[in-house]
């Protein structure tokens, strides 16, 4: 067994209490430690990618108890990628928070931050359904704190809605895992998949109901219609670094559907094989349609970006709902793109709002901002990436998903909605870009803040994803194909988990 | 014999528990109702606890006196809670039975 497998979970946990101790040492110490740990996390996740790239499915038996009795962490291609993505996004967000002094606007930013990563990585690594619930809650509580960090009227209201919806979600989660346990007698995903496959007919209605209930839970996180109402206000009203970090939150939902539903209701599940997929697809299509309208209807840039995030998640849902290896490969490709770009875009929106002073991010004309050409170019870049225009990776992700939809019987609906939604986003972003950067007034008011160059670095770094994903599209799609292949080979996942031996005691 | 004592204790306990609640149920004002639970219920539960102590002690797994601790605890806390509830009731001027006598200096 490889100890490395536990590191993405342990490192942020250790960071959590170290940073708590470091409270005494002041903000500078916490910043330095947090940066150090986050960079460390990137190295760890690169190592993990290396291990996973061999196709190995490393199973970590926490407490040295074999599955399904103990809780296992599973390192495979998909989880390694998720952890890697989280680390990158975390670094960008953290860097920005430090550069803009956001972390000083309240207590415990750094602790909450690392424990958020702990929750995220735990959710990505765990092979146990109830443990997933627990990590969801860790992730959520940390996110509550982060969301509210800095305070303010709208932020508090958004936070309240976010918390309540997620608490309802937690209840649903318990009902779902409870029913699944009641039907299968286990909590380990791999073991449960075996039990589902073997379940006699009279248990299947129960399992199907619990499975869909679980889908609703993940749907809340993944912002699936009609469960996404928490998202626009939460993303639009929290601070930029937090919004950026939250870009990964919706992906936890997507990931969980792929991992849990994909394994439990995979090819071997008999009449329940992929029974959830049409729902994901259909609701994804509706979400995308509504998201596109939301992008158009947004009153400010942050809200617009939030709806763009919604649109991107909806596109991912469509990919998941198509439920073929090609679609999952496309989904993963698009997920990496949309997560990191959305993160950068939230940061950029904040830079723009700061540069515009009084008008903030509202779509009103305002004086020319400092470094307008640079920021405008960045905006253009981000807009192109997020709306899925060529030549950036968003286009390729969308294209891959559409390509995967070609074999699906709902081809027409998918094409129509994806393409029209893209168009509406393009129209909306062209409008907002032209409002923000072109329709400037001669300056009488005090100009906004000058560009914070060091904060801008974070935007550039996250935006660099797009060209990288284009230039290295060949190896990256090859890797996402392998991810999809591994995801669809549920049998090998199940076998790896259930056959991992405990370490012999001397 | 032992079983008889046990039964007696249990019955006394249950009886007083019931009496306390009957008082709570039927007495006409809060201050009067307070007396039932404060005394009767406390004693009733105490009796049952002692029955339990006896039962588990004689069952042969060694003495079992920890129920006494609960009993003592109840006897310490019951009057304190009663005191606080009554103080609160007096403060918010909870209605009292009309014929209640009062020789209080401040009212």
């Amino acid at each position, binding site marked *: 067994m490889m100890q490395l497998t536990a590191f993405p979970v342990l490192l942020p946990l250790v960071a959590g209490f170290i940073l708590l101790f470091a409270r005494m040492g002041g903000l500078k110490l916490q910043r330095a430690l947090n940066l150090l740990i986050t960079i460390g996390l990137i190295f760890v996740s690169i190592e993990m990618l290396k291990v996973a790239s061999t196709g190995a499915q490393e199973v970590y038996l926490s407490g040295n108890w074999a599955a399904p009795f103990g809780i296992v962490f599973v390192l495979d291609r998909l989880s390694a990628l998720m952890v890697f993505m989280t680390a990158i996004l975390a670094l960008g967000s953290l860097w920005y928070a430090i550069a803009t002094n956001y972390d000083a606007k309240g207590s415990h930013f750094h602790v909450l931050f690392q424990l958020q990563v702990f929750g995220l990585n735990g959710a990505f690594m765990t092979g146990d359904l109830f443990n997933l619930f627990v990590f969801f809650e860790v992730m959520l509580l940390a996110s509550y704190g982060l969301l509210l960090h800095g305070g303010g009227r709208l932020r*508090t209201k958004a936070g309240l809605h976010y918390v*309540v919806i997620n608490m309802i979600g*937690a209840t649903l989660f*318990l009902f779902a895992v409870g029913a699944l346990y009641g039907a299968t007698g286990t909590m380990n995903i791999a073991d449960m998949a075996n039990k589902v496959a073997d379940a006699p007919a009279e248990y299947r209605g129960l399992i199907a109901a619990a499975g869909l209930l679980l889908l609703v839970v993940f749907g809340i996180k993944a912002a699936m219609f009609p469960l996404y109402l928490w998202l626009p206000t939460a993303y639009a009203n929290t601070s930029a670094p937090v919004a950026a970090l939250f870009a990964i939150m919706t992906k936890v939902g997507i990931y969980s559907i792929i991992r849990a539903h994909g394994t439990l209701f995979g090819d071997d599940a008999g009449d329940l094989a992929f029974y959830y997929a049409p729902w994901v697809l259909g609701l994804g299509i509706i979400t995308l349609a509504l998201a596109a309208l939301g992008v158009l209807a947004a009153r400010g840039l942050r809200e617009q970006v939030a709806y763009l995030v919604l649109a991107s998640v909806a596109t991912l849902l469509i990919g998941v709902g198509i439920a073929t290896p090609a679609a999952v490969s496309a989904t993963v490709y698009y997920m990496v793109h949309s997560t990191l770009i959305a993160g950068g875009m939230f940061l950029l929106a904040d830079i723009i709002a700061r540069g515009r002073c009084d008008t903030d991010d509202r779509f009103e004309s305002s004086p020319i901002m400092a470094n307008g050409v640079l920021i405008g170019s960045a905006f253009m870049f981000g807009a192109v990436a997020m709306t899925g225009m060529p030549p950036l990776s968003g286009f390729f992700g969308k294209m891959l998903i559409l390509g995967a939809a070609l074999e699906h019987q709902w081809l027409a609906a998918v094409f129509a909605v994806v393409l029209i939604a893209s168009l509406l986003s393009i129209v909306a972003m062209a409008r907002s870009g032209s409002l923000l950067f072109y329709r400037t007034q001669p300056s009488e008011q005090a100009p906004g803040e000058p560009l914070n160059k060091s904060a801008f670095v974070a935007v550039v770094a996250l935006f660099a994803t797009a060209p990288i994903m284009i230039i290295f599209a060949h190896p990256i799609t090859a890797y996402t194909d392998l991810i999809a292949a591994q995801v669809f080979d549920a049998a090998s996942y199940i076998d790896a988990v259930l056959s991992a031996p405990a370490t012999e005691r001397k | 014999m032992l079983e008889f004592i046990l039964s007696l204790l249990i019955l006394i306990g249950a009886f007083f528990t019931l009496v306390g609640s009957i008082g709570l149920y039927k007495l006409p004002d809060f201050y009067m109702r307070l007396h039932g639970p404060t005394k009767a219920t406390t004693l009733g539960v105490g009796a049952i606890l002692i029955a339990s102590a006896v039962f588990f002690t004689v069952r042969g797994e060694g003495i079992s006196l920890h129920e006494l601790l609960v009993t003592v605890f109840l006897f310490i806390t019951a009057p304190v809670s009663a005191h606080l509830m009554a103080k609160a009731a007096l403060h918010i001027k909870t209605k009292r039975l009309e014929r209640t006598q009062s020789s209080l200096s401040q009212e």
Partner: protein
Amino acid sequence: MEWLVAIVIGVMTSAGVYLTLRARTFPVVLGLTLLAYSANVFLFAMGRLTIGQPAVIDAAAAGYGDPLPQALVLTAIVIAFGMTAFLIVLALKARSELGNDHVDGLHRSHDEQETKQ
């Protein structure tokens, strides 16, 4: 007995749902608390009901209850506790920031009277 427990869970769920759908923070907190109760009891019941058979290893025991749901529920209770505590304080925060306790922060005449008091 199973029906009794199931009905109790159902009643708590109903009450929880109803209160969660109220417009003020306080009843919402109560509603979520009830929902958490019902979810916990549900999860617990998923190990099936046993009487007089605790999950404590004992040579004399006739049998054991299912310990796993118990452990899970314990975790769930703690988590719900943390969440509820957070929500309670968040309700205060909302009251402080929004000036009233409506979940959407709406101003109502009632609030203004409340604040004046």
